[in-house]
C-alpha cells in the first residue's frame, strides 16, 4: 500500500495529513528517513519497499577510499537495543558514485550521503567528489576518530566538530547536515559551534558508546570492546538530546534514536525535530521507515494535525499545549522554530498569507469533525 492510500483510507475523515516536509530548500516526501549504517545503499531493501516512497535515504557512511571494517564480533543484542562496532566498512566514494548512485537514481530515491574520514582532508575529499552529483545533502559523521588528534573523535569537542564542519562547508554547495555524537558533556555547546561553522542542519544523535561482556568466555562480546548502542534502549536519551539541541540552535534538527513506531516519531517531532531517522528498526522490520511514516500520518489524522510542521516543537514550553489546532496557530504566527535556514529566514514555511488561509480552513475542518 502506498502512503497516499493509507492516508486516503483514513477512517478519521477530513483531508489527508500532508507528510511532506520542506528542509534545506527542497521538499522531502516524508519526514521519516532510514538512518545511515542501517540501510546500506538501499539495495537490500528494494525487494520489500519502493525506495522512491521514502522521504530520503541516508546511505552508509562513505569514505574517500574503501574501509575494511573491524575484525571479530561486530554486533550483539542488549536489553532493548544492540551494540555495533562495524568500523564503518564501506566501498568508498568512487564506488558509490559509479555503482550505487546511478542505481539509486533509477529507483527515484532521494539520497543523503553520510560521509566519514580520519582527517579533515579526507572528509573534504569525499565532499568534493560528491559536488555536482545531484545528491540531496551531505551528512557529516563526526563520531570518527581523528588520527591527527590521537584518535579522539572529531565530534567530542566543539573545536574539533567546528573545524571539520567549516572545512567541508567550504568544499561543498550541498546542504550540510552534521550528525552529532551523544558521547559529550554539553551537546548544546557543540551544536552551536557546528551551526556557527556553517551547518544547515543537525542530526541528533549518533549511537551511545557502550559494551557487553560474554561471561562464559570472560571477554567482551565485541571484537572492538566498545560499540555504539542503538534501539529503543537509547530513545529517552536521544529525545533529551534533541530537546537540548533544538533549544540551542536555529537550524533544523533531525531526531534519531530508537524510533520504532509512528508515536515514537511524534515524540521526536514534538521535542523539536523537523524530521526523524529510523535505524535499528530497519533490521527488525525492513519496511519500518514506511510503516512508521504511515503510523505518523495516522496519528496526525486522528489528532487533527494537517502538516508535519504543526507537530515540530509542539511539546516545548511556550509553543503550545499539544491541543488540536495549536500547531497550525503557531504556523500562522510564524513563531515556529526548527525548520529555519541558517540565515534565519524560515525555510520550508508557507508564506504567511497562505498559512493564515490554511489555518482558517483547518479550523473549519476541525469544527466539522
Amino acid at each position, binding site marked *: 500500500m502506498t502512503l497516499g492510500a493509507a492516508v486516503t483510507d483514513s*477512517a478519521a475523515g477530513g483531508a489527508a495529513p500532508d507528510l511532506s516536509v520542506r528542509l534545506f530548500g527542497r521538499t522531502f516526501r516524508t519526514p521519516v528517513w532510514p538512518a545511515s549504517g542501517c540501510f546500506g545503499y538501499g539495495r*537490500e531493501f528494494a525487494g520489500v519497499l519502493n525506495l522512491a516512497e521514502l522521504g530520503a535515504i541516508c546511505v552508509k557512511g562513505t569514505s574517500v577510499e574503501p574501509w575494511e571494517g573491524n*575484525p571479530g564480533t561486530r554486533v550483539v543484542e542488549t536489553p532493548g537495543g544492540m551494540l555495533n562496532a*562495524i568500523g564503518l566498512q564501506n566501498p568508498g566514494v568512487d564506488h558509490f558514485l559509479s555503482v550505487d548512485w546511478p542505481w539509486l537514481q533509477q529507483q527515484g530515491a532521494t539520497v543523503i550521503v553520510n560521509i566519514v574520514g580520519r582527517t579533515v582532508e579526507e572528509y573534504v575529499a569525499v565532499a568534493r567528489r560528491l559536488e555536482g552529483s545531484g545528491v540531496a545533502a551531505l551528512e557529516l559523521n563526526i563520531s570518527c576518530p581523528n588520527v591527527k588528534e590521537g584518535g579522539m573523535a572529531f565530534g567530542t569537542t566543539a573545536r574539533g566538530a567546528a573545524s571539520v564542519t567549516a572545512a567541508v562547508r567550504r568544499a561543498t554547495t550541498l546542504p550540510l547536515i552534521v550528525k552529532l555524537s551523544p558521547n559529550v558533556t554539553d551537546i548544546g555547546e557543540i551544536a552551536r559551534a557546528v551551526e556557527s561553522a556553517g551547518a544547515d542542519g543537525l542530526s541528533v544523535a549518533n549511537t551511545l558508546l557502550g559494551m557487553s561482556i560474554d561471561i562464559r568466555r570472560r571477554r567482551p562480546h565485541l571484537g572492538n570492546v566498545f560499540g555504539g548502542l542503538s534501539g529503543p534502549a537509547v530513545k529517552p536519551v536521544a529525545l533529551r538530546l534533541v530537546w537540548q539541541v533544538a533549544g540551542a540552535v536555529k537550524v533544523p534538527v533531525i531526531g534519531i534514536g530508537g524510533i520504532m513506531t509512528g508515536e515514537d516519531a511524534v515524540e521526536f517531532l514534538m521535542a523539536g525535530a523537523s524530521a526523524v531517522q529510523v535505524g535499528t528498526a*530497519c533490521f527488525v522490520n525492513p519496511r519500518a521507515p514506511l510503516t512508521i511514516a504511515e503510523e505518523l500520518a495516522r496519528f496526525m489524522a486522528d489528532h487533527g494535525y494537517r502538516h508535519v510542521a504543526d507537530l515540530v516543537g509542539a511539546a516545548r514550553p511556550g509553543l503550545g499545549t499539544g491541543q488540536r489546532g495549536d500547531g497550525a496557530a503557531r504556523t500562522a504566527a510564524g513563531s515556529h522554530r526548527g525548520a529555519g535556514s541558517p540565515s534565519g529566514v524560515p525555510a520550508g514555511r508557507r508564506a504567511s498569507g497562505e498559512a493564515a488561509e490554511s489555518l482558517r480552513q483547518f479550523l473549519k475542518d476541525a469544527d466539522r469533525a
Partner: protein
Amino acid sequence: MTPWDAPAPPTHVLRQAQARAEWVTEQARVLAHEGDGEVFKLTLAAPEIAGRATAGQFVQIHPVPVVRPVPVVSPVPHGAPAIDPLLRRPLSLCEIRPEAGEISLIYRVVGRGTRVLAALQPGALVDLLGPLGHSFPDPAAGRGRLVLVGGGLGIPPMAAAARWAVQAGRPAVAILGARTARYLAGAREVTASGVEVVTLTDDGSAGERGVVTDVLDRLLNATGTTEKRAGTTEKWASIGEVWACGPEPMLAAVKERCAAAGVPCFVSVERFMACGFGACLGCTVPRAGGGYLKTCQDGPVFPAEEVVLGGL
C-alpha cells in the same frame, strides 16, 4: 567410466550452483513445537518461504509479528513493536516441504531470544524473513558422492541437504556428531530423507563413540577406490564434495582434511547478525586473502577456501 568416476567440478564452478532466492517477509503459524526444555523443533506453515528455499539457507525469525499491517480502521496506531528481544534470530532451515507449505527449524535455547521463542504455542504467529543467504550448491551440478557432515546444532540443516541430494539422485552419506545424545537433534530428519547416516557422540551415548572427522578420514582415505556396497548394485563413487555445518573448530578440521584430499568443501558458518539480509555488515567472516564476507548474504554456505575459519 561411470559418471561418478568423472572428476568433480572445482569449487568455483559449484559456487555458481548455489541458489540465492529473493527473500520475502512472511507471518507463519506454528503448527507444532516440541522440545525437551533445551532443544526444540518448530514446525511452521510458511508456504512462501517453503516454496523458495533450498538447503543451507536460513530464516530470520521474530516471536511477534513485527512486520505489522498498517491499521486502516483501528484507532490504535501500531501493532506490537519488538522491544525485547529486539532483533530476529537466524535459524537454518531443517526441513523444507514446498508440497505442504511447511518448514521446520531446530534450535537450542541459549539466551533471551531463543527462550522467548521456546514459549510459543501451536497456533501462534511468528514473523519470518526468508529464505536468506546462499544454499549449498545444487547437487545436480556436481559429481561423485556427497558427504554431509553435521556437528551438534549443525545437524538440522543437513536434513534439507540430504533430501535435496536424494531428490537429485546424488549418492550421499551423512556423518552426524554431537557431544551427547540429546544434541543429535535433527539426526532423525536426516535419516528420514533416505541417505545413509553414521552417528557419533563424544560420550558414546548414541551411535559410535568418536568425532565426525574420524569417519570423514576413513571415507577420504577410501576415495578413488570403487567398492561394491553389500546388498545394493549401486557403485560407491569417489567423494565429490563435502558439505559441513557445525562448530567452527569442526569446520576448520573438515576444511583442512578436504584440502589435503583435494575434495571440494562447502561450510555453513554461524555469526551474530542484526538484519540477516546484508544491510548491517554485522555478521562478517574474514575472507581468505583479506577483507570480509557477509555471512548472511555471501554465505552462510561458503566454499571452504574462501573463508578464514576459527577467527572468533
